[in-house]
């Protein structure tokens, strides 16, 4: 009898703990263990990275050399390679604070907003290309205004269709409104770092955190969304998600956030006439393109999602995901990896660092640019990607050796264009007119950018790209054209081969040629002396087609 009682008690305790498991799990770590909040972001990063390297007795790589550092920083902040003038000036400069000055210049430049916009666009469209122009404009404006990330989230989830400035933010919902699964998965993954799709058909087989309840709980925030005949995002007055468990039991989903927090819809007594009126109004919206603005129900599950997700005791998913995704943009890998697997079976490589950065982000009103500045200022960001020490390099999760990352399609397209131009026409990147030129480059880069693979999990260079470079008229006739405005035109004017080689290397690869390379280039150009312009074109082509330009190293 006593044994049975103890057994029951134990079972009850276990069940109680399981029920609270998700909540326990998602509780904030005590801040007492973290570095003080006043610590500069870059110092906090370096502290925690170094701490782990010391613990694992691993040496990081040396710092990247200066040409590499300005190239990487310019690509990551401005979305393009550094021009010849920019690169040479940086390497020659003697001020001790030149690196922080570089970062300030780049973050204040018009390039920053264009590139960060492209990065966010890529993130939120999950690799799809060519999103609507007004959506791109919305993102650009928000970045230029330093709009906080939580505000952008609010606008994307619950923006007012009647507000012309905010309406494009609803593109996130609008493009997914017809597919509840996609909307649920994408929101959960992109804003909270959680891919719950595995939990749709059964409780997650490996991860205790994620049950069907969580999947359908998240889905319930979106289930009432519909598109009107005029393609506006609107919400119905009622609706629930039903699902079947693996045991065949049919269940009604509760509106539940990833933390386990449940939202109870208010119980409002409605007469059958009222219900009919509401349903008719919604139905009319889907049929009639002259119906007027859609009705707004008093209870909006998606508004509740925003409220809950940003609440002080619930916002760790939102904050940690933002930190993780921004971190991955600059390091090529998240603190939690993969980026959509934030759960207890997949802890961060540097849990205290993730906590510290999340706390910092929340304390500074979700200012992403502050986080970015801190990241690119850190020593960790500035490490070389070349390992030439004895022994094995640190693993990628140690952030002791920079990862080689493919350029995004736009970065590559823009960089190819810049690299192919006469460097003397590219000296005014700090002038007020540069914003127009950069805007023009952006618009003209779309077409070429579409030819390149979008970087993703299993990125490879496709043979189509190699064939494009080798045989397309565009690459040959456009990029290596013999014309005063082009690099070729500039090289033709140079007095000797040595000057030609130096200029080409700086313009395209952002560095001086190595002696071995220099002699190979001299040999090549000499061989082509019968037709020197052709020789120059082939020489420049070979540099443009190099892997060194293709990747961010």
């Amino acid at each position, binding site marked *: 009898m006593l044994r049975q009682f103890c057994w029951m008690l134990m079972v009850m305790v276990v069940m109680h703990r399981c029920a609270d498991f998700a909540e326990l799990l998602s509780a904030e770590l005590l801040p007492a263990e973290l570095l003080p909040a006043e610590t500069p972001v870059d110092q906090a990063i370096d502290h925690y990275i170094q701490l782990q390297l010391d613990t694992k007795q691993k040496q990081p790589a040396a710092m990247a050399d200066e040409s590499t550092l300005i190239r990487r920083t310019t690509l990551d902040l401005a979305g393009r390679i550094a021009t010849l003038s920019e690169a040479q000036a940086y390497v020659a400069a003697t001020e001790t604070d030149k690196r922080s000055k570089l970062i300030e210049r780049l973050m204040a430049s018009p390039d920053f907003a264009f590139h960060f916009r492209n990065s966010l666009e890529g993130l939120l469209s999950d690799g799809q290309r060519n999103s609507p122009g007004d959506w791109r404009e919305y993102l650009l404006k928000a970045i230029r205004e330093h709009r906080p990330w939580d505000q952008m989230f609010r606008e994307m989830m619950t923006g007012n269709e009647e507000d012309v400035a905010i309406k494009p933010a609803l593109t996130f919902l609008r493009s997914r409104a017809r*597919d509840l*699964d*996609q909307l*649920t*998965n*994408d929101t959960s*993954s992109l804003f909270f770092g959680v*891919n719950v*799709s*595995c939990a749709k058909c059964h409780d997650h087989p*490996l991860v205790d955190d994620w049950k069907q309840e969580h999947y359908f709980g998240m889905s319930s925030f979106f289930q009432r969304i519909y598109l009107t005949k005029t393609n506006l995002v609107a919400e119905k007055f009622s609706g629930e998600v039903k699902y079947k468990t693996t045991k065949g039991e049919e269940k009604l989903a509760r509106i539940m956030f990833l933390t386990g927090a449940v939202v109870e819809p208010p119980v409002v007594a409605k007469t059958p006439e009222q219900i009919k009126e509401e349903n008719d109004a919604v139905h009319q919206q889907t049929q009639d393109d002259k119906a007027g603005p859609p009705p707004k129900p008093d209870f909006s599950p998606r508004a509740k999602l925003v409220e809950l997700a940003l609440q002080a005791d619930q916002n760790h998913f939102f904050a940690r995901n933002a930190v993780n995704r921004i971190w991955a943009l600059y390091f090529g890998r998240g603190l939690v990896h*993969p980026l*959509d*697997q934030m759960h207890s079976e*997949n802890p961060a490589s540097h849990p205290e660092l993730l906590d510290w950065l999340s706390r910092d982000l929340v304390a500074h009103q979700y200012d992403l640019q502050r986080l970015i500045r801190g990241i690119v200022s850190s020593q960790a960001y500035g490490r070389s*990607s*070349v390992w030439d020490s004895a022994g094995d390099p640190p693993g990628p999760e140690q952030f002791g050796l920079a*990862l*080689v*990352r*493919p350029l995004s399609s736009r970065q590559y397209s823009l960089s190819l264009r810049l690299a192919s131009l006469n460097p003397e026409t590219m000296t005014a990147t700090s002038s007020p007119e540069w914003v127009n030129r950069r805007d023009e480059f952006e618009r003209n880069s779309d077409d070429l950018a579409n030819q390149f*693979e979008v970087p993703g*999990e*299993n*990125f*490879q*260079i*496709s*043979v*189509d*790209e*190699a*064939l*494009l*470079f*080798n*045989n*397309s*008229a565009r690459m*040959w*006739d456009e990029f290596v054209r013999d014309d005063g405005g082009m690099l070729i035109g500039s090289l033709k004017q140079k007095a000797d081969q040595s000057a030609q080689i130096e200029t080409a290397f700086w313009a395209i690869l952002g560095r001086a040629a*190595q002696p*071995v*390379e220099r002699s*190979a280039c001299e040999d*090549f150009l000499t*061989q082509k002396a019968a037709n020197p312009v*052709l020789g120059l074109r*082939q*020489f420049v*082509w*070979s*540099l443009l*087609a*190099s*892997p*060194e330009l*293709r*990747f961010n*190293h």
Partner: protein
Amino acid sequence: MARNDIPNRNLSQHDVSRRGFLGSAALAGAASFAANMRVLDALQTPTLAAELKRQQKSVILLWLAGGASQLETWDPKPGRITGGPFRAISTDIPSVQISELLPKMAQRMKTTAIIRSLNTRNGDHGGGTTLMETGRAKEAAVDYPDLGALIARELGRADSQVPDYVSLYSETEGRHKGGAGFLGARYAPMFLSDSMIPPNIRRLDSISETDHTDRAAFQRLLAKQFQDRHPRSVVSSHGMAYERVRGLMSSETLFDVSQEPQSARDFYGPTQFQEQCLIARRLVEAGVPFVKVARAWWDSHGQNFETHRELCADLDQGMSALLDDLGQRGLLENTLVLTFGEFGRTPQINPSLGRDHFANAWSASLSGCGIKGGAVYGKTDADGHTVVEGEAKAGDLFATIFSAVGIDPTKEYQVGARPIPIVDFGCKAIPEILA
């Protein structure tokens, strides 16, 4: 390109590098493989041909874009109200009859099996295409590769000098590109959508052969410096892609039907589809693991019977010529030829004398490699409304395809945190049509 420029990496222990083979044949023939395909003459040598046959399996998918009617092809219902005006005819397999619109194929059922019991439930062009291209329903979180990418991955060679996956368009529709999904761009199709020549495969007139080669060699030399500093990284795929260029450029000749004697061209016939069948044979002969030839537009919501009379004639001629030609060259035992589209057509005939989309009871055919010729799997009811025996899903068809060409249908890929089986859950190969 000199022979010692050709890299010889990724040799698996169990198979001999095909190029290594042809390399020695090429030395014998005093011509480098990459420069021209004359080395195919080596296939005339019995021992080499036999060895190659043993190794390289290929799949040719004759994609019936728009959804062909099973009642006018593989599962006729003569005399029934749903049967339409066409009769059924006997075939070279005693118990089997097919539509009179495929008289030539009726004499070639010895190498062909039919599945009559597909129930794929999705009668929407988009959804049905995704389902029949990838073997499973679209899923929000996973980017599934299509059949061509899967076959390219499983049967292709890493250092192949021919494309792994070629997709030939059709004049009207059937231009859906498909994709390699999570397998990566390496396995994306070489997609011919506007012309019979793949894009960017031909050297520009403004550059000579020597200059093209010199330039490539110089690029490779400079690239090597960078690659050596970054071993074990994503950089290597760059070099690999560029290495394949010369080989792929020389495979342009595979697409050139004028390389074939007129007798061969006449054997297949003059229509675009029939020419593309001939090109498909040339491609698999050169070791391309997957070729898709799309024929459109079977979506006969009106004038179903006239449409099928015309399209079936084209299919019948092209497909039977292809099977005969592959057979004569000893390639059929290693080549799997498939026909299906995104769905079938309704047994009910609509007021425009058409048949509409129908995915509840339709057919596919499989011929050649690994197939039990003459087998018919599954039955539909007398009028063709439902499957009464042997219901098969898209995944079952895919599992059967994989088994036929020697790929383990239970294989899994690891995609991030998730194991993804190559065949959809709960689906299995159909042993009754496998040899």
